[in-house]
């Protein structure tokens, strides 16, 4: 077994003891990528030379021993800017674009001693749930190459699942970390809105977007989250609250926790194997002295509709800057500035992005604003209130990560609405800005992983991580990737 498949924390311990070097890890990761990524296509760009050079330099200097990430290779979703690197958000419209600055979260990885080893594939502008909407072609699920890895952070999830990175960053607007984590059998976390700076994250929906970590264990996830979290003077919406030690409560155990299950909401289109998986888990939790109770999220069933209004309204405006004036693609068919805009944007954006921009434009336009955008904002308040009421009684809320396991590539791509519904359980969390983690909870009869999601109160990542660690121990999950 190569070092590339070991856990992040395990590796840092070995590195600090001097038993292995960053170069040892880097070499194994490079080997894995060369062996597997032709099939998986997790990366849009893998920085092989740079990774080996930096790892060699660190190995030589020994400077990695005092940093939390100790020279480990971390992959970054390609909607997170890194200075001097192509940053495309999976879109043709950003072809040729190199970011002149580094996102705060990526800078935090570097400051914590990590090496950014490449950019991972995603649905264009993080719009999608399968990583099929990428200008670079789809990524594939390491458990079954005919299946989608989920999305939009499918590249990061697949890279971590296939041991092609020790950890990875993704972004989660409506489930884009948790759903692919569930589909690929890894751990993925969306922290409280504002915990990780959005500065340098190419915006999809500003009020919902949040960067978070992927790893192969809850503990690894906690360490990576700690490395990237920070209040940021360049992001007005980032939290000023101090960043806690996310590993602090990991081993406090499940005893005494109260977990709420929103049964009324879960009735919606959930596959039987998913329901059964959750029921089994509930029973096991109760044996561990966890109080499992019903909670009501009465408005969560409207979250998907609410989300598609709000997220796309914001997106229609956020994506206006891609216009062919200052960077990226410009059409060759411009007669005047107006046709320069319209052709550039028609050529540069894919179908899903155009759909969402047009929908977002519609819900903000004169005569429709109140009926759609304002209405959705009010429904958002009700969804938040439901969570607040539920959290009066429980420490955590648990539900499946998605209503089904991963689906085959091509199955939903022609039916956007069906695709949207695969995020039904993750979306309410973004609307409320809550921390939530997705962890593997079993394997479906077709051999694909199932995931469960734990949701916590605002700023209480530590309770979420503690619960997740407890569940992780209860569930006997083994990664069975085919690559």
């Amino acid at each position, binding site marked *: 077994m190569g070092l590339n498949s070991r856990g992040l924390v395990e590796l840092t311990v070995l590195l600090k003891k001097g038993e292995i070097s960053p170069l040892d890890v880097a070499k194994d990761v490079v080997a894995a990528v060369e062996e597997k990524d032709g099939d998986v296509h997790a990366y849009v760009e893998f920085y092989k030379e740079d990774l080996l050079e930096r790892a060699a330099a660190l190995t030589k200097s020994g400077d990695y021993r005092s940093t939390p990430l100790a020279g480990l290779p971390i992959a970054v979703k390609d909607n997170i800017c890194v200075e001097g690197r192509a940053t495309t958000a999976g879109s043709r419209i950003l072809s*040729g674009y*190199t970011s*002149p600055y580094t996102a705060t979260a990526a800078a935090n990885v570097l400051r914590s001693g990590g090496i950014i080893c490449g950019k991972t594939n995603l649905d264009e502008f993080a719009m999608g749930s399968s990583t099929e909407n990428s200008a670079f072609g789809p990524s594939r699920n390491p458990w079954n190459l005919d299946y989608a890895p989920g999305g939009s952070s499918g590249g990061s999830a697949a890279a971590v699942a296939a041991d092609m990175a020790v950890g990875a960053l993704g972004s989660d607007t409506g489930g884009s970390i948790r759903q692919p984590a569930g589909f690929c059998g890894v751990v993925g976390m969306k922290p*409280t*809105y*504002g915990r990780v700076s959005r500065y340098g994250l190419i915006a999809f929906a500003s*009020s919902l977007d949040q960067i978070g970590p992927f790893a192969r264990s809850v503990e690894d996830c906690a360490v990576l989250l700690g490395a990237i979290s920070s209040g940021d003077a360049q992001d007005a*919406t980032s*939290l000023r*609250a101090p960043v806690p030690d996310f590993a602090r409560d990991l081993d406090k155990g499940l005893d005494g926790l109260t977990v709420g299950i929103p049964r009324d909401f879960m009735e919606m289109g959930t596959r039987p194997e998913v329901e059964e998986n959750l029921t089994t888990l509930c029973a096991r939790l109760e044996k561990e002295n966890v109080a499992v109770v019903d909670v009501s999220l009465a*408005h969560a069933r*409207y979250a998907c*509709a*609410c989300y*598609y*209004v709000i997220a796309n309204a914001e997106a229609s405006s956020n994506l*206006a800057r891609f*216009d*062919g*004036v*200052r*960077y990226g*693609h*410009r059409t060759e068919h*411009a*007669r*005047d*500035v*107006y*046709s320069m805009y*319209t052709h550039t*944007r*028609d050529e540069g954006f894919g*179908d899903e992005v*155009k*759909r969402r*921009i*047009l*929908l977002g*434009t*519609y*819900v903000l*336009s004169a005569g*429709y604003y109140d009926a*759609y955008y*304002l*209405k959705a*904002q*009010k*429904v*958002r*308040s*009700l969804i*938040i209130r439901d969570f607040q009421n539920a959290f009066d009684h429980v420490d955590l809320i648990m539900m499946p990560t998605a209503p089904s396991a991963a689906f085959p590539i091509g199955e939903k791509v022609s039916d*956007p*609405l069906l695709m*949207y519904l695969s995020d039904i359980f993750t979306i309410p969390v973004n*609307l409320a*800005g809550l921390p939530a983690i997705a962890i593997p909870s079993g394997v479906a009869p077709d051999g694909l992983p199932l995931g469960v999601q734990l949701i916590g109160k605002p*700023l209480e990542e530590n309770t979420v991580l503690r619960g997740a660690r407890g569940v992780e121990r209860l569930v006997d999950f083994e990664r069975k990737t085919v690559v």
Partner: protein
Amino acid sequence: MKIDEKMIRHLEMLARIDLTADERERLSEQLDRIVGYVEQLQEIDTEGVAPTSAVVHDEHSALRPDEPGPSLDRDKILGQAPDAKDGFFRVPKVVER
């Protein structure tokens, strides 16, 4: 509300996207279904409910002191531009419409 041809052309104008005829037919049909789905929001009684446009979990004033910071290198910026001239970004002529 039906997303018909007239509406989609209006949206294209506002969003500055010029769809091909094919795309227009496909997307308007899909959009119409999505808008139909979103209609379910109208079922909800939101009387007296305040809208939420941002979720902020701690109290802070996010103001910036008026202190200058670095600007970007012009050559680097214009080097990325699809078209530039004499230190300016160059765009096809602006026609009011």
